[in-house]
């Protein structure tokens, strides 16, 4: 039943796509010359460019084969030959996305940075790469009361107030689905990686009684249960505004982080939801988004 449900849910957009009108051959704004300077493609400082005139509709395709103005043959479709096509779109492109997250992990609110980077494939409908997120302890003031075992005390205290931190890094695969009629791309990431979450002494407690390292005391007080290292799995959903521009696309997302087998002081579980706000740059969007009407 789960298999059937999964296939059914993800086949719905394919059905919607089959009912869309076929795209036209009209050039979009992406085909017009850029009005701003492009220093990465110029050796001299660029002069201000005049605003380009509106691009007229392309002339009907010639009856003969390609002329000298079209030195590269384009791939012919089953329909009438396309005009002015000189090269194939790239099959892959690098992308990077940066975000800030609000976490609801271990039954408390926290925040931290996250990123993903990799290669955009299949006309930017599949991304494969590396991702990571962090929950820096010093930037998150939440504290966790932990009672020490009977007979154990630290600088006269039997209950300590700890802070927490953690991070993960891993591989990710994201499927991207264009929603019909709206300039929004639905992204479905799946991330599997390795990381850790832990709890630590802070403030005056980091000055140990004998001058030994803090981690030595933490291991001694909590019998090595002050942190967890292991596999972390994450999935979620994002909605990105498809601006048709590779320079930047804002997105919001909701993620679920699963930390299987988590055992540590301070919290029974570190699994939970997080919300993302970010921007993605690069990828194959831009030229390949011209089919959207």
């Amino acid at each position, binding site marked *: 039943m789960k298999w059937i449900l999964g296939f059914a849910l993800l086949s719905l957009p394919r059905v919607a796509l089959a009912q869309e009108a076929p795209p036209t051959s009209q050039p979009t704004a992406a085909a017009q010359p850029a009005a*701003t300077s492009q220093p*990465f*493609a110029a050796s001299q400082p660029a002069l201000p460019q005049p605003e380009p005139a509106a691009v007229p509709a392309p002339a009907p395709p010639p009856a003969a084969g390609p002329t000298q103005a079209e030195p590269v043959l384009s791939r012919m479709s089953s329909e009438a030959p396309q005009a*002015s096509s000189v090269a194939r779109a790239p099959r892959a492109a690098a992308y990077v996305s*940066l975000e800030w997250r609000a976490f609801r992990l271990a039954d408390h609110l926290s925040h931290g940075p996250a*990123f993903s980077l990799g290669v955009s494939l299949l006309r930017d409908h599949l991304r494969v790469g590396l991702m990571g997120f962090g929950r820096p302890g010093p930037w998150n003031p939440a504290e966790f009361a932990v009672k020490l075992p009977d007979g154990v005390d630290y600088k006269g205290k039997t209950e300590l107030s700890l802070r927490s931190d953690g991070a993960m890094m891993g591989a990710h695969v994201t499927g991207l689905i264009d929603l019909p009629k709206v300039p929004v791309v639905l992204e479905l990431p799946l991330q599997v990686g390795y990381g850790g979450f832990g709890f630590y002494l802070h403030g005056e407690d980091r000055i140990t009684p004998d001058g030994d*390292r*803090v981690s030595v005391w933490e291991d001694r007080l909590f019998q090595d249960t002050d942190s967890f290292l292991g596999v972390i799995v994450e999935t979620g959903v994002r909605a990105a505004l498809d601006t048709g521009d590779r320079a930047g696309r804002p997105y919001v997302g909701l993620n679920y982080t699963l930390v299987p087998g988590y055992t540590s002081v301070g919290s029974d579980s570190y699994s939970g939801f997080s919300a993302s706000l970010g921007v993605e740059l690069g990828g194959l969007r831009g*030229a390949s988004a011209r089919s959207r009407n």
Partner: protein
Amino acid sequence: MKTIAALCIGLLLTAQAQAQERVTTTDLTEEEARREAGPESTPAEFIVGAAAFLSPRDDFSGPTGGGGALDLRWQLPRGAQLGLTAEGSRQETVFISGKALPGGSVFDVRAVGLLPISSRGPLQISARARSGASWLRDQGPGGEVTTRGVRTVSDLALLATVTHGERWQFQAGPVLGFAFELSPTVELADQAQLLLAGVGYRPAPNLLVVLDLEGGGSFGFNGDNAKVLARSTLGLRVALGGGDARRPY
């Protein structure tokens, strides 16, 4: 697990279906092809940079340290860069062998390489790698140096650089940092995930004023390190050959 596998297979099939729907419209016009071809040949020239930076306290109540940096790059045709960076700073606390020591100084020297990966219009994505050594020392109450440390320091970054108009440049990307202490102990000192965001303004064709913010969490010395790294940098970059100073850095 079966549900996840089914979802993944469904995702792939959906993505492939959407990709095939657009197969007749992905051919580029001549203008788009030229833009997709990447940066044209740029003149080889030296680019020098000087900057001052501050590191904030964890609660951002003030600086915990600061210093200066020099950067010398040789830009190759088509945008690759090779160079050296050196920086020195004073810090309220330095971490040597997992101990937080007061009143220290740090001196870094790193080789840097930057390689453009893709470029289209105002956006360029580049990979940057830096690797070198860092020397740390504390400063005791009487001003004497009691502890010294040596590390190897490296970082990898994927930078997205976007120009806007005639004068502005924005740069952002993740930075993965690794530092290993070599002396007095051998131990992982910092493994950091940072986000970098910066803005640059070009008052003259070969000058670029940059303001960068960089920060994120770090793990090292089994949790006895600073746990977070953050820095704000204000600098000036000059293209000595007279070329456009708006470049990834």
